Every structure is written in structure tokens, then in C-alpha cells.
């Protein structure tokens, strides 16, 4: 068992309410996994737990990455991000009043070695690191065809482009695992198709693991190698797309108890 990310018996209680109960899952290297489930199943809560936005009540999250093994539960979000877990948000959370380039540069902050003294006195090393950062960011933006919008404020981008930028920004942290929270929400079929290509490109080009939450079943079934189904905070099923399509429990959960 050398999964990249191993999650065991994860529990989250909000007061008396159990939002996530006893979820165990794993993610392997360079895998594309989907997390599906009806509205309110606790998918985003699970994302928030994994990325440290909210603390876990109990259970363990272990990352066996390139730099060693780390227990992630209890670590603040920024530590987890530094260890290689990056994400996008369901309701886009770009730095709206900053330029596209700045959005990406910010994501590179924690990796940059620019010193305080060097930057406030503009020492040569400042210009060197700054140049490197901008070059790297430009390269990344070029891959995703955003190089012409570098100086545009994020809030002025079209919706679909904002989603794309959010993915670019997440990639700029050099993650080992990328969490995508409903990347296709609000997109038309054409945009969704483009997005599918984009996600595949990301996975292959950057050799990373992707876990995505999505409601668009065609997208999920096209993309995912494995699927986890979450309902009422607990794991309902796990399997390949074909297995999930045939799973009665999943169908019932989606169609409702009555029918």
C-alpha cells in the first residue's frame, strides 16, 4: 500500500451534525479520480478537510509524496498546500482585483526564495528571482493560452477563462495532487468539452494526480479512471466508471429513495 494519499476513517462533525463520517479513500500516482454524489453529500466538505480549510474531527490523512511521508490532518491549509495539495474552488476564488500574472505569481510565492532585504533595496538578486518567476509564470500561462491576458484584472476575464486561470493558479504551486471542485459548473457543452481536454492535458503534462468533484456525468465518465460516490457524508461506492454506472446503491441515491 503505497498510495500517494491515504485517507482513513475521516470524520467531520459540525456541532451535532455529521457532515463526513468514516470516509476512507486513497489516491495513487498520476491518477484521475472523480468524487460524485448528490447535492449536500459532503463532497466540498471532504475537499475542505483534505486541503486543511477546515479541521478534521478524527481520522487520518497521510501523504506519501516525493519529499517523504506526512500526516496532513491538523496541519494548516498553507502547510498542506506547500506539501503539494492544490485546489480550485466551487465558486471561483481568484484574486479578483489583481492581474492574471499576479494571480499566478502569488501561487509561486511559497516556492520563491526572494529575500526581504533584497527586495526592499532592489538588490540584483531581486531582479534575478523576479525575472525567473515571471518567466515561469509566463510559460505556464502560455500553455493554457492566457499569455495575452497577463495584465488583465482577473475579475474582467470571461467566466470560462476565470475557471481556466484558477486551474493555472493551482498548478503554479507545483502540486502533486490537484483538487478540482466542480470545474465545469456553469459551462456550456463546448466549454465543457474544452475543459475535458484541458484536464487531461494537465494530468499528462504535469504528471499529477487529479481528484475532481463534478455533476456533469458525461464529463466524469469520460475522464475518470476511478470514481468515489459520496452520499450523506459516507462513502457509498468506489470503482471504475462502468462499475459505478451499474451500481444499484448509486442509482438509488441519485434517483431518491421513493422510486
Amino acid at each position: 500500500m503505497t498510495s500517494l494519499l491515504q485517507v482513513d476513517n475521516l470524520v467531520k462533525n459540525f456541532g451535532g451534525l455529521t457532515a463526513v463520517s468514516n470516509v476512507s479513500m486513497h489516491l495513487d500516482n498520476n491518477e484521475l479520480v472523480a468524487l460524485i454524489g448528490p447535492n449536500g453529500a459532503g463532497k466540498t466538505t471532504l475537499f475542505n478537510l483534505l486541503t486543511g480549510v477546515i479541521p478534521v474531527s478524527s481520522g487520518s490523512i497521510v501523504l506519501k509524496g516525493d519529499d517523504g511521508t506526512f500526516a496532513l490532518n491538523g496541519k494548516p491549509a498553507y502547510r498542506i498546500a506547500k506539501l503539494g495539495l492544490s485546489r480550485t474552488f466551487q465558486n471561483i476564488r481568484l484574486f479578483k482585483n489583481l492581474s492574471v500574472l499576479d494571480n499566478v505569481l502569488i501561487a509561486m510565492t511559497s516556492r520563491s526564495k526572494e529575500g526581504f532585504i533584497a527586495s526592499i533595496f532592489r538588490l540584483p538578486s531581486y531582479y534575478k528571482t523576479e525575472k525567473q518567476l515571471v518567466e515561469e509564470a509566463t510559460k505556464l500561462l502560455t500553455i493554457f493560452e492566457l499569455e495575452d491576458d497577463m495584465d488583465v484584472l482577473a475579475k474582467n476575464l470571461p467566466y470560462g477563462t476565470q475557471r481556466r486561470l484558477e486551474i493555472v493558479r493551482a498548478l503554479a504551486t507545483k502540486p502533486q495532487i490537484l483538487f478540482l471542485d466542480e470545474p465545469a459548473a456553469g459551462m456550456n457543452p463546448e466549454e465543457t468539452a474544452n475543459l475535458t481536454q484541458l484536464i487531461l492535458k494537465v494530468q499528462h503534462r504535469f504528471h499529477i494526480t487529479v481528484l475532481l468533484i463534478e455533476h456533469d456525468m458525461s464529463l466524469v465518465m469520460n475522464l475518470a479512471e476511478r470514481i468515489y460516490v459520496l452520499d450523506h457524508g459516507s462513502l457509498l461506492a468506489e470503482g471504475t466508471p462502468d462499475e459505478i454506472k451499474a451500481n444499484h446503491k448509486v442509482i438509488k441515491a441519485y434517483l431518491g429513495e421513493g422510486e
Partner: protein
Amino acid sequence: MKKSAIKKVVSFAAIVMTAGIFAGCSTAKTQTKGNTQTGNTVKIGVNMELSGAAAGYGNSQKQGIQLAAQQINKNGGINVNGKKKKIKLIIRDNKTSTTTSASVAAQLTNNDKVSAIVGPATTNAGTAEIPNITKAAVPSVSPSATDPNYTKQKNGKVQPYVFRACYQNNFQGGTAAKFMTNNLKAKRVAVYADNSSDYGTGLAKAFKKSFKGTIVDSQYFSEGDKDFNAVLTSFKSKKIDAIYVPGYYTEVGLIVKQARQNGINVPIVGSDGMADPKLAQIAGDKNASKVYYTTPFSDDVAKSNPTAVKFMNEYKAKYHADAPTFSALAYDSVYMIKSAIESEKSADSVKIAQGLAKIKNFDGVTGKITINKNHDPEKPIAIEQLTNGKVSNSFNIK
């Protein structure tokens, strides 16, 4: 690692050095020395607290200054070497702020070219004014800056252009201490001082230094406070013979009121900041009994002093109220400048400063004033007693 740190330090040092060389270059300094007066008026600047925390006192002083200028002008003006010149007042507000006071002083001396300045009312605004008036060689008379060191330089020498019309704290605090022991026979005294200016704390310090009995408790209030019950209640259980309350009438009036309502009937002694008819109004006439304060401006002095009688009557005619001490001090400040001009026969600012330093037995509303070598006025001090809100008695303290 170490190398880069050294590099940082070196580059930082380089920047500081450049800045240093930059600053070291001989840079221009603004300079003026003394304002001379031509024309038919004598310009007197007023640097006063007309807004902000001390606005109440500042405005009282402004009234005194305006009254004085009006009287002088009505009588033809100041006799400058045989020529009568009228006073032109230039009144500016310093917002009870040190920065603004410095700026106002600079404007009065440089742009308005005044010969002398009256004000400011508070020590802090006053000390902020000193560098600029000294640079311009224009004297100022503060009606009420009370800090003992206000007129002194750092090395103890007197500030050549700084004068005042009021007592300094040590004198007033010491007098109150003597009065407590000798007249009131108080042995256990509580001190409750205004902590938001040098006035209250300075007087409290001076009082504590010279008081022979026991200081049972020493507490502070700040300007703008309205509720003193907590401290007064704690005084009540301490068997005190008197309370010393250096502060202004706005707060002390309330302290008197609340003390009496709390059943504290011991004498309450304060300073000239209380010497205002409003004290009794705020405290309530019934409560304002067994209240004493040190003042230059007692009824006794007033009766035997025609200047004071005249001042009080004209003040009442002009402003329809009894004259507060602050107005009297400000009024005297203007007349002190007038007397300096007349004795030196010149309205040049440097001459006025010399004249002010030589004032002897000047007939002021607040007594016969002689300026001593520290530029402090020497004048008699008295203690007034209030009974049912009216001055019932006054004591001369030697």
C-alpha cells in the same frame, strides 16, 4: 549563507551612507530675526486653543484678550515712543495640537509679522511654539502654561522669548499644601488629579512634595470624565480630612457635586483652574460649600484693586457673565505687552521681549506683577472659599 548576509549589510550601509552624505551637505535653513513694526498699528498674534480638548479655556482667554485690545484701542492705543498706535489682533486656532501650535506660531511670526504673541493656553501647545518664536525672536506671553520648566531651556537658562502670566505649578501646589496644614489642619489628605495634562499632574506632584501630613490615596481622572463615584466611594472609607483636586472646573465641578452626593463633606481644595463661576453652577450651589482654591484673582484683591474692578465690570457688560480667571490672565497678558512696549518705547519684537523681562509692579487684574529672572510672574496668591456657591471668604497665604 553568511556571505549573502554580509552582502546585504554592506549594501544597506552603502545606502545609509549616501543618505548621510546627502544630509551632510550644507542645506538651507529658514531664517528671520525679529519683527519690526512700521505703520500705525501694533500687531499682536493670538495662538490659542479655540477648538479641540482645551477649547473651553481657550475661548475664555480669547474673550479676555479681545476685551483688553478693545479697551486699549478705545483709549487711543499703545503709546509707542510718543505715537499712539492701535492694536491689531490676529487670532489663530491651534486646535489644542502641538503640531498646529508650532505652525500657527510660524505663520504669526513669519507671515503676519506680529510683534508679540499671546498664548497658548496649555503647556504642551506652548512648548511646541517655542522653537519657532525663538527663531523669529518674537516674545510670547502665555496666560496659563503652568509647567515649572515652561520658561526654561534644557540647560536651565531662561528662554529669552517665553513669558507667562500665571503661577507655575510648584508655587500653587505648595501654597495649597501650606493651606491644608495651617488653615484646615488636615492631616490625612487624598489627591485626585487630572491626568490628561501637565496641569493636574504637575500640581499634584508639587502638592505631594510640600505637604507635611499623610497622603492617604492618590488617584487620577482624565479630561472628559463625568463619573467620579467609584474613586470618591473608595475615598469615603479612608477617613480623610480633605481632598486635593488639581484640575479644571469642568471636571472638578462634577467631583464636588458627586462627592457631596456621596456624603463626603470634607473640604475640597483645588487650583486656579477651578476659579470660574461655572464651578458652582456645575456642582450646584448647595454642594459648593467648603470648597477652596488657590487663585491670583480673589475678591479681596479685587476690592482693593481698581484695575480688577474695572475689568470685572467691563467684562460683565460685554459678555453678560462673571469673568473667569482665564479671561483675567489673558487680559493681563495683553496689558503686559502694552506696558513692555511703552517702557521700551518701541514695538519691535526684540525690544518687547526685553521690556517684558523688566516688568516690575505692573498693575494687573490678577495682582501686582513682577517678572522674575525665570520669566515667571511674582504676584500675591490667595485662597478663596466657596459657601453655597458664593465666595464667602478669602485667605492670604504668605
